[in-house]
């Protein structure tokens, strides 16, 4: 291709000035950008208001595309199901027969549980949902993992509330706008979820890895007790995340922990539930409040 038109300004004062000023403006743009980056690193919440307004503005479009996404997924699943119907049917019947047996067992366990809890005089802590909404958009081009929720202050969503889907923990609310909220997904590298192994309660932390997995760090050092396929649930230590929410499944063992896959893929979740931030009950008062001075 031929070179573009000659951009040399020659002797024309006007052309020289306009070239100079356009380059100056470009450099000023870079300097402004640098300033904004410094401000946003120094105080990460500085631009949350602007971002919230921007997210509110695109929220209707987000709802529409979220609906479209759901339909598209259903259509694809329908086409896929057409080819696997028979084997799937056979497998489901087999599983149903097993599940019926399990159901009876579970009912018995539940009844016993209720009886034991009544004996212990425990109150049932119902998970209190604040809102049900769709995840309307996400930062699919950035290394940060944020998603936008289609519910904001109008539905009673507040900062710090955990967000979960039917299959597991998704993240927590970071910034709230009028009709949308920004969710920090648990796969973000700044997210840290206290977890325990569902089977026996081995405590650990699940830190996001940025690529759809979480890095599990054990609190107890020593021999790594984790096995491939272990289920991790949130432990609720420190509050915020309700204990017992399914979080991740171990896929790879490391020397001092594991890599785990997040159970609830946010792209599969149609609707998500925003829960009240969980607060553990205050520890009992110490038995002898008197200090040594008296």
């Amino acid at each position, binding site marked *: 291709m031929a070179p573009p038109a000659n951009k040399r300004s020659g002797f024309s004062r006007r052309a020289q000035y306009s070239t100079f000023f356009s380059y100056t403006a470009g450099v000023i743009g870079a300097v402004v950008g640098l300033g904004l980056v410094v401000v946003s690193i120094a105080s990460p919440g500085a631009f949350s208001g602007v971002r919230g307004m921007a997210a509110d503005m695109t929220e209707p479009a987000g709802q529409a595309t979220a609906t479209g996404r759901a339909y598209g997924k259903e259509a694809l699943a329908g086409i896929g199901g057409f080819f696997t119907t028979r084997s799937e049917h056979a497998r489901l019947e087999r599983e149903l027969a097993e599940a019926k047996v399990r159901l009876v067992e579970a009912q018995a366990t539940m009844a016993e549980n209720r009886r034991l809890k009544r004996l212990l005089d425990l109150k049932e802590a119902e998970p209190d949902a604040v809102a049900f909404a769709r995840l309307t958009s996400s930062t699919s081009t950035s290394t940060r993992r944020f998603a*936008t929720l289609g519910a904001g202050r109008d539905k009673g969503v507040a900062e710090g509330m955990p967000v979960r889907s039917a299959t597991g923990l998704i993240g927590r609310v970071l910034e709230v706008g009028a009709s949308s909220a920004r969710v920090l997904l648990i796969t973000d590298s700044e997210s840290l979820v206290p977890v325990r192994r569902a089977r026996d309660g081995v405590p650990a932390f699940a830190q996001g890895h*940025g690529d759809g997995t979480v890095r599990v760090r054990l609190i107890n050092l020593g021999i790594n007790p984790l096995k491939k396929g272990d289920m991790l649930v949130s432990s609720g230590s420190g509050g915020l995340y309700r204990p017992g929410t399914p979080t991740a499944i171990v896929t790879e063992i490391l020397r001092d922990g594991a890599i785990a896959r997040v159970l609830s893929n946010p792209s599969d979740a149609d609707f998500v539930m925003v829960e009240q931030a969980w607060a553990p009950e205050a520890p009992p008062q110490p038995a002898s409040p008197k200090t040594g001075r008296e």
Partner: protein
Amino acid sequence: MTMARLSRRDGTARQRINRAPSPLLARGLPWLTILLGSLLPGLLLIASAPVLPPFGFLIFVAWRQLRPGLLPIWSGLPLGLFDDLYSGQPFGSAVLLWSIAAIALDLIEARLPWRNFLTEWLVAIGLIVAYIVLSLALANMAGAAVSLPVIVPQIVISVLSYPLVGRVVAMADRFRLTPFMVLR
């Protein structure tokens, strides 16, 4: 007005009676496509890893390569501001990187006057890789801790999709100069 002319394959300009491109479309379409490019990837899927190319940046570079001078050199400032609102990066990172990319592209073009598909792609590859890596560095400075291998798939996808983005921008460029009926 040069805008009312359509260049033909042999380089001559052709003008039809009572037809002229809309100045609004001719000036505004590049901006509109870049804004859409910043907004759309987020709406397309709820990703749990950085998988989609930064379309806003790719379209920005493609417009500047196809029509140097159509977008002013300071256009990284407003367009980057809009991208930052939706990208999830620390606010200002796109303003900084897009402005630098525009200046760098201008300097490269002053030294490489003869261009073809391969050199344009190579220059764009350099800019894209630098952009994604520096975005990661800025995000990590602001508190994240993501390792380099996580962005490798995104770099590969972005580099391979750039020629496609270039085609789409070329189509948009032809649409930009479509002559419409002039109402008097």
